[in-house]
């Protein structure tokens, strides 16, 4: 009896490895090996083919002391994250709040409308925004002219190029809206009902019920926003090529240029790991603060 049991256990274990083998292989080839390899690359001056010599800590030293673009691109990326992440959190929370009203009819249509930009967010709509931001014929400056404002040269103005990219990013927050909305819809109806009996106003309900109970969703969106924000690449690459005068030159572009333009794989790997550590530290800090503001049921 016992022997049969171990046999079937063995069989089950074999099947487990059989079915999970694509992942195990993929993990070794496309995750484990690259991670180890890129750590080794940090200490080399490898070129595009991966061949190079051991250079010790030279790459790390170069990033912090010999590469002004390292700081410039990091600063630009921080600017993007610090402005765009909170903005998109607040906007998507407010929109989700409006959509969560149970008497809103045509919710599906609104949801679709807010979501479509996110689905289509690629080079095509990025080019569309390039046209919208066109200083002379663009839509935004035309709309601004109604209010007597002469719009800036957006993408070719060092002060306005990054805000333009942030504005474009706000247009694609559809998925954050839907995640937030799903979070709001999970809040039990009885809470609002009993609050209403106690005579609570709508504002009180939002600040005392909706907002606290939505904090886990907001926390998730915040972390995902930070991780995604630090990797912003396509929009500045397509719209401004990092210009004017490096005003929209992001960290990811710096990695891309060093790796695939200059073929400095060792240095680019170093930059990638520095970015990873920065994201990790910030995420950990955010996670640490979560106990003060994120509501957990138990």
């Amino acid at each position, binding site marked *: 009896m016992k022997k049969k049991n171990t046999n079937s256990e063995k069989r089950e*274990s074999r*099947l*487990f490895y*059989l079915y*999970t083998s*694509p*992942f*195990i292989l*993929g*993990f070794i*080839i496309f*995750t484990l090996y*690259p*991670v180890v*390899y890129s750590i080794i*690359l940090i200490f080399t001056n*490898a070129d595009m083919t991966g061949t190079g010599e051991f250079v010790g800590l030279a790459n790390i030293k170069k990033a912090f002391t010999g590469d002004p673009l390292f700081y410039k691109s990091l600063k630009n990326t921080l600017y993007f994250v610090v402005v765009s992440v909170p903005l998109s959190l607040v906007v998507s929370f407010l929109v989700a709040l*409006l959509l969560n*009203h149970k008497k*809103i009819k045509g919710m599906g*249509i609104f949801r*679709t*409308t*807010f*979501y479509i930009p996110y*689905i*289509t*967010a*690629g*080079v*095509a*709509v990025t*080019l*569309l*925004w390039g*046209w*919208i931001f066109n200083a*002379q*014929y663009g*839509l935004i400056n*035309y709309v601004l002219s109604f209010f007597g404002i002469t719009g800036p040269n957006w993408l070719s103005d060092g002060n306005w190029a990054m805000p333009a990219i942030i504005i474009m990013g706000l247009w694609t927050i559809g*998925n954050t809206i*839907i*995640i937030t909305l*799903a979070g709001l819809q999970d809040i039990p109806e009885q809470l609002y009902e009993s609050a209403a009996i106690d005579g609570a106003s709508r504002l009180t309900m939002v600040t005392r019920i909706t907002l606290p109970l939505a904090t886990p*969703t907001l926390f998730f969106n915040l*972390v995902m926003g930070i991780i995604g924000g630090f*990797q912003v690449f*396509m929009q500045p*690459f*397509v719209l401004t090529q990092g210009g004017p005068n490096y005003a929209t030159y992001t960290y990811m572009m710096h*990695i891309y240029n060093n*790796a*695939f333009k200059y073929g400095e*794989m060792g240095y*680019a790997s170093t930059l*990638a*790991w520095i*970015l*990873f550590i920065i994201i990790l530290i910030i995420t950990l800090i955010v996670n640490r603060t979560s106990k003060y503001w994120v509501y957990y049921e138990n």
Partner: protein
Amino acid sequence: MQVNVAIKETTLNHYKNKRKVETINLIISYIILSLLALVFIFPFLWMISTAFKVPSEAYTIPPKLIPKTFTLDNFIQGWQYADFTRYTWNTIIVTVLATLGAVFSASFVAYGFARFKSRYSNILFTIVLGTMMLPNQVLLIPTYILFSKLGWLDTLKPLIVPSYFGGGAFNIFLLRQFFKTIPVELDQAAKIDGANSFQIYFKILLPIIKPALMTVAVMSVAFHWNDFMTPLIYLNSDEHFTLALGLQFFQNSYGSSQVQMLMAVSLITVIPLLILFFIGQRYFVQGITMSGLKG
């Protein structure tokens, strides 16, 4: 008695006022939502409008939403400026093959995690979740060197093949959840009828989790259709470009002076995504909601 009536009246008034306030609230909500919806949709209208304009009308102040003369020239000429038919074909190949890989590979692995146990199955599943946290940028460079050693640079393979190795951690996670909702008795009944584990996976369980597979599929299609960075890194020659890359190339060479053509071609590349979205909307929403769940 009189006091009672008075109380009744005040509560009634209170209710009336409250309903009034609620109606006003609702109207304000509608107005704000409609304005927002307009902001979200207007860029597309602008894209469509520009795509149908003659050059002289595309570059005018004040801009007009409805063109005076409609023209299809932008679509025809723009399409021929670069080899967009080729780019479309490449994009379809990548999207279809990568999506098939993701759907089958992820469901295969998820089936393993949902139905079989081993000493290390928990650890391995933790690794699956862990790879979701791992940032793409540290993997990018060594993976590039790996593909270059395989001689796969400037081919579509780096864009397709990885999908067949597990199909993405999030997809495995999502499909495993769905497999777990199906009672094991179903497997056992099929086993008694003589089905092997692969037949149970392929013929019995896959059809049941079809909605979840659709979720994986639509999200994968949208991702690969839009993906810019991977093609940018791996593809060099024009004949292998995807649409995302082709559009960027077009903009660099002619786009800034031919915005009506740029918008026309961009519009064509967005339409398949819009169709996909309208067909598969509920799957998208499901996928997004699930991605929030893991947090």
